[in-house]
């Protein structure tokens, strides 16, 4: 070892010594012969034959020691670089192909890394969990009630820390301009549960986190800089939230958030109105907790289930029989996209395989003419291992260069893609080319270099002797079979990707054509933060809405406007329990759910929802008249099969008994094609019949929908004016057109479609290069044969049939394998994420059309080489022999 090192540094001396020793050896052998009377020349010749020449012996001795591996690797590398420089066309195509493959993989990996793998940015994030209630009968998880949380706090918990929070939005009216802000009600230990410190100030005290506590708030770093210029004197100053002077006690670190949304304002959850805080049926609180060290998820689950059972036993008014579900904190955040990202990772892996097959094919094609070179090196004493190493060095050099270029491409492509697609992904802002991505790209490059280099290297280094004898004609037949197999694999893989992209494309087509149950064109939606001074009582709110709507309806071009708590396809979920007539279940947990639209009389006109039976709610339905409800066809079909629901009673616990007065068409509330675990039943009640208790806080979950043929940009300034005229401190926010909302609801399909579609295009390009290169190469190899055939009377037609037939045979073999693989793989890939809608995973029309595309591309790729083959002049071709 040290001898090796020493001799590496003192290589010159060691080499000289070895030379001297060897020369001495050979001279002594020759002298011996000369003593027996042979001439000097004859003696030297026979010694060379018997003992080996100086050069070969030196090569043999040197290549046997480990230090020579380092040295020869360096030699190999320089030689490889020289070889590549000598064929710049080959090198640039190979490097470019690899750059595309490695770049695409690196980009997708950095998305997977940033979204799925990277830990959440909190202290010991592995111990952080979210705790949910789980309605086992309806199979849907739900949040807890604040009452549950307070009971949990008194129990012996498997958690080191636990805290509650509930999303809530606020209207900030001072300092600065009125603005609508997203925020959260939190319990006192919220930030310490995450293990995140504040930039300034402190968390809420337990005294503040209870009913009657002083109004205090913690604000985001952004809001602090925006409203207080980033000045530390902000602590102790007040801001006006929903009309209440609230003291700032803390400022967050920049960038903190939990979940997908940023919150700017936090207030103590304990300050809720007592009626809300004690309502065990109001499931609006999320719970995040930090497991005690060493406690497993399942242990925590068991312990919490026992606690919840105890609560149920002691409190008859609770929603009985809900189980506990504890998830790692990352799960709710990324659970939805995991399948999609794995699908993309699979797809991009296929692209890499195609790229590798392409480069392997190029290498094989190149190695045939190089067989001569290898034979000579073998004859000069290089072993097979040495030649394989040389070839692997070449391919690794190619792949590393490709990797470097690919990294640059990934960086650039990722930036471009994220600019448009980041919003479709949770943690989209966490995607970077970081150290682990670099590591991945490096490992991938090396692995790929060995993968595509090994087969050609082993092939070319076999049976070197015969080639030398033949004078340079390589064993092309075998090469050819390997190359054909690689092209077939490429075509098959490309078909799989095309099929995947085709299925997603058809899905999007179906989604666009799907009947939504309402007309999204010309509908505009937004929210309004009502002026806090004008909504002290329920009657105030009803009046405020009527006044607001009157002003909006007077705007020229507005054909109708209404308020509603539910806008289709925005993921709002006001799922409320109900029962029909006297079928009251033993526990509320067992009651079916319906999506409750709390709206005004004009809702179905604005949304263009068909009225099927009876009437919709009207101006005459008020707090002073009997409660009435309208149900959709889905609820009518399920709970009144074959009967007339009109006049029957539907009961919403805590809200009241409603008489059914009409049936309307079903609306697609969840995204189309998404098999929602949530209810499909829908019912509509009048906002003007809602009890005062809920009316004063209803504005944060109420939307205005309006119908106008005008462009949003034209009508919005008028709407803004109308909102401000109804109250100068009123805010307008979340402005979106209904077509935008519908389009956004397709993001889960659109995102993979765009990515898989671009991969499929890339694959098609690579595969067509592959076919072209192979046919073109084989024509070059067979010019002689073609010449003989033509000289023997073959027609151009026959040549055409022979060459084009070869290309098409490969294509159809690839198609046959590809279709089979696609039938299996697309089903497998798409089972990661249920993305398809209106089209089966083995849709024959899709498979047929992508096959046609592939055949067309193959024909184009074959065209040039086939034309060249047909123009072969037999005389010219034969003269070269």
């Amino acid at each position: 070892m040290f001898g090796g090192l020493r001799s590496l540094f003192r290589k010159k001396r060691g080499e000289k010594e070895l030379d001297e020793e060897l020369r001495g050896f050979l001279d002594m052998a020759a002298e011996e012969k000369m003593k027996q009377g042979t001439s000097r020349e004859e003696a030297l010749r026979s010694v060379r034959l018997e003992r080996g020449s100086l050069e070969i012996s030196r090569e043999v001795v040197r290549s046997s020691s480990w230090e020579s591996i380092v040295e020869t690797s360096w030699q190999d590398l320089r030689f490889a670089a020289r070889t590549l420089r000598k064929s710049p066309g080959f090198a640039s195509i190979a490097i470019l192909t690899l750059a595309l493959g490695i770049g695409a993989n690196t980009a997708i990996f950095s998305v997977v890394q940033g979204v799925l793998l990277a830990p959440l940015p909190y202290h010991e994030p592995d111990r952080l969990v979210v705790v949910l209630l789980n309605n086992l009968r309806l199979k849907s998880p739900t949040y807890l009630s604040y009452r549950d949380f307070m009971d949990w706090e008194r129990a012996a918990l498997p958690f080191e820390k636990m805290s509650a929070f509930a999303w809530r939005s606020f209207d900030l009216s001072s300092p600065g301009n009125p603005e609508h802000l997203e925020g959260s009600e939190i319990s006192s230990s919220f930030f310490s549960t995450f293990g995140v410190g504040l930039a300034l100030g402190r968390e809420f005290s337990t005294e503040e986190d209870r009913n009657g506590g002083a109004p205090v708030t913690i604000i985001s770093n952004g809001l602090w800089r925006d409203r207080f210029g980033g000045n530390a004197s902000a602590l102790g100053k007040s801001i006006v939230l929903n009309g209440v002077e609230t003291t700032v006690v803390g400022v967050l670190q920049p960038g903190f958030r939990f979940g997908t949304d940023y919150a700017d304002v936090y207030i103590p959850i304990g300050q809720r109105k007592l009626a809300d805080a004690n309502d065990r049926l109001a499931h609006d609180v999320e719970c995040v907790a930090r497991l005690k060290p060493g406690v497993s998820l399942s242990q925590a689950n068991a312990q919490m289930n026992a606690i919840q059972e105890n609560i149920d036993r002691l409190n008859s008014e609770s929603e009985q029989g809900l189980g506990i579900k504890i998830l790692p904190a990352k799960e709710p955040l990324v659970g939805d996209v995991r399948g999609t990202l794995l699908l993309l990772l699979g797809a991009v892996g296929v692209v890499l395989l195609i790229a590798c097959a392409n480069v392997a094919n190029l290498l094989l094609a190149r190695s045939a003419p190089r067989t001569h070179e290898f034979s000579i090196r073998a004859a000069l004493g290089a072993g097979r291992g040495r030649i394989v190493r040389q070839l692997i060095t070449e391919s690794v050099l190619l792949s590393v260069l490709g990797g470097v270029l690919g990294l640059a491409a990934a960086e650039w492509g990722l930036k471009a893609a994220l600019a448009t697609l980041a919003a479709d992904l949770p943690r989209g802002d966490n995607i970077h080319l970081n150290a682990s991505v670099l590591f991945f790209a490096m490992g991938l490059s090396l692995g790929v270099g060995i993968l595509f280099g090994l087969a050609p290297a082993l092939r070319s280094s076999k049976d070197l002797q015969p080639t030398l004898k033949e004078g340079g004609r390589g064993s092309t037949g075998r090469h050819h079979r390997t190359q054909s197999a690689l092209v077939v694999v490429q075509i098959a893989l490309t078909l799989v990707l095309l099929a995947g992209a085709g299925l997603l494309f058809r899905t999007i087509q179906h989604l666009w054509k799907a009947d939504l149950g309402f007309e999204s064109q010309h509908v505009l939606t937004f929210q309004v933060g009502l002026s806090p001074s004008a909504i002290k009582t329920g009657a105030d709110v009803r009046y405020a809405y009527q006044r607001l709507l009157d002003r909006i309806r007077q705007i020229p071009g507005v054909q109708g406007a209404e308020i509603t708590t539910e806008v289709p396809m925005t993921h709002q979920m006001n799922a409320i329990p109900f029962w029909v007539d006297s079928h009251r279940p033993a526990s509320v947990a067992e009651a079916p759910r319906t999506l409750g639209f709390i709206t005004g009389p004009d809702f179905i006109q604005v949304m263009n929802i068909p009225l099927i039976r009876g009437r919709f709610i009207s101006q005459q339905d008020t707090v002073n008249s009997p409660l009435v409800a309208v149900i959709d066809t889905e609820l009518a079909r399920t709970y009144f099969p074959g009967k007339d629901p009109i006049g029957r009673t539907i009961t919403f616990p805590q809200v009241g008994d409603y008489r059914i007065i009409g049936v309307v068409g079903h609306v697609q509330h969840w995204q189309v094609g998404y098999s929602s675990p949530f209810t499909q039943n829908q019912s509509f009640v009048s906002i003007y019949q809602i009890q005062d208790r809920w009316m004063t806080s209803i504005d944060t979950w109420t939307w205005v929908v309006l119908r106008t043929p005008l462009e949003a940009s034209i009508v919005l300034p008028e709407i803004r004016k109308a909102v401000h005229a109804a109250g100068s401190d009123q805010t307008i926010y979340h402005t979106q057109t209904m077509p935008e909302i519908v389009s956004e609801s397709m993001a889960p399909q659109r995102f993979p479609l765009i990515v898989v579609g671009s991969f499929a295009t890339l694959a098609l390009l690579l595969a067509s290069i592959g076919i072209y290169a192979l046919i073109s190469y084989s024509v070059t190899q067979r010019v002689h044969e073609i010449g003989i055939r033509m000289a023997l009377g073959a027609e151009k037609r026959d040549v055409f049939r022979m060459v084009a037939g070869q290309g098409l045979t490969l294509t159809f073999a690839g198609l046959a394998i590809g279709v089979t693989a696609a039938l299996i793989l697309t089903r497998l890939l798409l089972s990661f994420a249920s993305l398809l809608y209106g089209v089966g995973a083995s849709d024959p029309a899709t498979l047929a059309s992508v096959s046609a595309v592939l055949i067309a591309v193959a024909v184009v790729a074959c065209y040039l080489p086939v034309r060249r083959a047909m123009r072969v002049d037999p005389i010219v071709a034969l003269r070269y022999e």
Partner: protein
Amino acid sequence: MPSMPEKPGDLVQGTLDMLILKTLALQPMHGYGVAVRLEQMSQGVFRLNAGSLFVAFQRLQRAGLIKSEWKATENSRRAKYYALTDQGRKRLNSEKREWGKQVAAIARILEAS
């Protein structure tokens, strides 16, 4: 001509190392001396080419079984002389024992009817 194995280099690696050690056990020798001595002792069965011989020398030297020194030969030529180290002597003894056992065992197998 004495009969020669088709490829003298085909000697089992361990065997060549053992034979070299045995040759050097008598006295320090240079490379050619070792080759000639081996040929004589084997009555021409083993004819070594320079490459495999010097690979073996390097291997043995790296393992610390032999050491080398430049000296003048009887023909006043400069040559590197190889000699056994203590470790090399021990190794030779243990290999001889092992070889004896193996040969006896192989002979028993081959002669068993």
